[in-house]
C-alpha cells in the first residue's frame, strides 16, 4: 500500500459523479422512496411481523457494495490495464499492485460509507432499529465487502477490455441483486429458494445481516459460505489477473 497512490485514487474517485451517485447515494435514495410508501411502514405478517422498510435496510446496505465492487471497480481496473497505466507504474519503484490495493480501499470504503448512510437514514427517517448485534453485523458487513471486491477482481482479471468488463459486470450484477433481495427480500422467499440463494455470496450476506439486525449472532453457515467464496474468488483473481 502506497499512501500517495491511495490519496490520488481517492481524489480521482471524487471526480466521478456517476460512481458517487450509484454507490453512495442510490441505495439510500431507494430506501427513501420505498419508505415513503405508507403500506411499507406497517408490519407485514409475511415478513414475520417486520415492516418492508425494515427488511430493505440490509438490502440497501448490500446494494452499494454490489454496485461498487461489480460495476465500478472492474471498469476502473480494466481501464488502467488497457491504458497502460499499470505498465507505466511497473517501471517505477512502486509496484502496480499498489494501484490495485488502493482501488480496493477506495471502493471498499465507499461501500462501507454507503452502508452507514443507509443505516443512518433508516434509523432517523423511518425508525428502523439499528442492528441489535452490532459486532456480528460489522463482521458480516466486512465479509460482504471483501466478497464484492474479490468478485470484482475476478471480473477485472477475466476482462481484456473495459467493454467486456462492463458486460460481465452487468451479467453478474442482476443475479447478485436478486440474491441480495432487491426484488424479493430473502425473508419473503420460499424456503427452497432461500436455501439456494443462501449458497451465493450475497444471499449468504443478506441472511447474515438479517440475523445480526434481529439481535442474533449471524449463523456460522452463512459466515462460512462467505469465507469460502472470498477464498475461492481471491485465488481465482490472483491466478488469472494480467498486468498488461
Amino acid at each position: 500500500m502506497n499512501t500517495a497512490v491511495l490519496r490520488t485514487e481517492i481524489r480521482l474517485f471524487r471526480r466521478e459523479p456517476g460512481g458517487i451517485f450509484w454507490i453512495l447515494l442510490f441505495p439510500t435514495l431507494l430506501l427513501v422512496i420505498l419508505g415513503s410508501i405508507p403500506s411499507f411502514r406497517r408490519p407485514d405478517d409475511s415478513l414475520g411481523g417486520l415492516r418492508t422498510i425494515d427488511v430493505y435496510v440490509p438490502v440497501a446496505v448490500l446494494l452499494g457494495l454490489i454496485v461498487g465492487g461489480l460495476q465500478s471497480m472492474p471498469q476502473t481496473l480494466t481501464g488502467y490495464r488497457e491504458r497502460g497505466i499499470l505498465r507505466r507504474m511497473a517501471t517505477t519503484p512502486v509496484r502496480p499492485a499498489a494501484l490495485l490495493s488502493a482501488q480496493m480501499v477506495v471502493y471498499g470504503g465507499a461501500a462501507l460509507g454507503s452502508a452507514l448512510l443507509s443505516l443512518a437514514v433508516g434509523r432517523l427517517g423511518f425508525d428502523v432499529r439499528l442492528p441489535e448485534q452490532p459486532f456480528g453485523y460489522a463482521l458480516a458487513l466486512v465479509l460482504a465487502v471483501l466478497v464484492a471486491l474479490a468478485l470484482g477482481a475476478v471480473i477485472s482479471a477475466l476482462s481484456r477490455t473495459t467493454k467486456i468488463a462492463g458486460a460481465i459486470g452487468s451479467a453478474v450484477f442482476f443475479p447478485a441483486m436478486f440474491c441480495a433481495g432487491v426484488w424479493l427480500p430473502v425473508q419473503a422467499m420460499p424456503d427452497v429458494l432461500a436455501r439456494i440463494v443462501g449458497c451465493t455470496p450475497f444471499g449468504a450476506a443478506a441472511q447474515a445481516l438479517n440475523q445480526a439486525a434481529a439481535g442474533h449472532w449471524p449463523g456460522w453457515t452463512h459466515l462460512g459460505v462467505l469465507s469460502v467464496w472470498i477464498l475461492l474468488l481471491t485465488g481465482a483473481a490472483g491466478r488469472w489477473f494480467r498486468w498488461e
Partner: protein
Amino acid sequence: MAPVIEVTDLRKSYGGRAAVDGVSFAVEEGEIFGILGPNGAGKTTTVECVEGLRVPDAGRVRVAGLDPVADQEQVARVLGAQLQQSELQPKLTVREALELYAAFYPRPADWRPLAERLGLTPKLDSRFARLSGGQQQRLFIALALIGDPRIVVLDELTTGLDPRARRDTWHLIEDVRTSGVTVLLVTHFMEEAQRLCDRIAVIDKGQVAALDTPTGLIRRSAGATVVSFTPSAPLAEPDLYALPALASVEHRDGRITLTGTDETVNAVISLLARHHVTAHQLRVTDATLDDAFLDLTKEEAV
C-alpha cells in the same frame, strides 16, 4: 569502468516467433546510445527487457550491475522510462501526476523546473485527457526524469511532437546527458539518431546488424559518398561501371548520380578530364544516416 547497461545474447520469442534473437550491446556511463531499426525489428522488446517489463527467454541483462527482473525495485530507482504507448488516469492533472510520481522515488528531482523546461507550466491544472498528444508526450518525458535517474530509456521520444518541440526536446536530452545521465534512445528518426547519439545499434530482424558511431555507420555503408553532375557530353556506360568502389549508378534527365567512396569521386574526376567532358553542377555530398540505414537493413535479394 563497467558498462552501465549490458545486454548479452538476449533472446525473446512470442508464440514461437523470435522477436529478439541474440542481441548483445553495452552502454557506457554518460553516453547517448541509440537503438535504430525498422518497425517490428525487436527494438521495443529489447528495451522492455532492460526496463524489467519482460522476462528474457535467454541471455543476460544487467543495469547498473543489477538484474532488472530479480532486482526490479532497485533498477526502477536508477532507471527512468518513457514507454511507447501508455496513458495516465484521464482525470489526473499534470501537477498531480508530477507530484504522485515524484513521491515514488527516494530522492526525486524538483518537478517545477522540469515542467518549466518541458513547457508544461501553463498546463499544470489540466487533466491528462485534455492534453494534446505532444503535451502528453512531454509529460511522459518529465515522468521519466522525475526520479533523478542515472539512466533514462526513451522509446520513440519525439513521436507526436511538432518540429519545434522536437528540437526543444533534443536540447533537453543533451542537457540531461551533460548532467551525467546515460540515455538509451529508441528511435526511427534518422535525424534524431544522427544528432543525439554517440553510438547506435542498428537492429534488424531481432539481431544487431551494426553497432558504431553515426559517422562510422555512414562510412561503413557501401555508398558513403554521393557524387552527382550533368555531363556536357554522354559518358560510356562501361567507363562508369569500371569506376573503383562504385556502389550505384543512376541516370535521371541527363544527370548522373553515383555512390561510392572518395576513391570513386577521384576516379570520376579523372575520367571526365580524360574525355574532356565538363561536369555541370557537380555536387559531392556525404550519404546520410538514412542511406546507411537503408543499406544496412535492406532485404536480401532472394
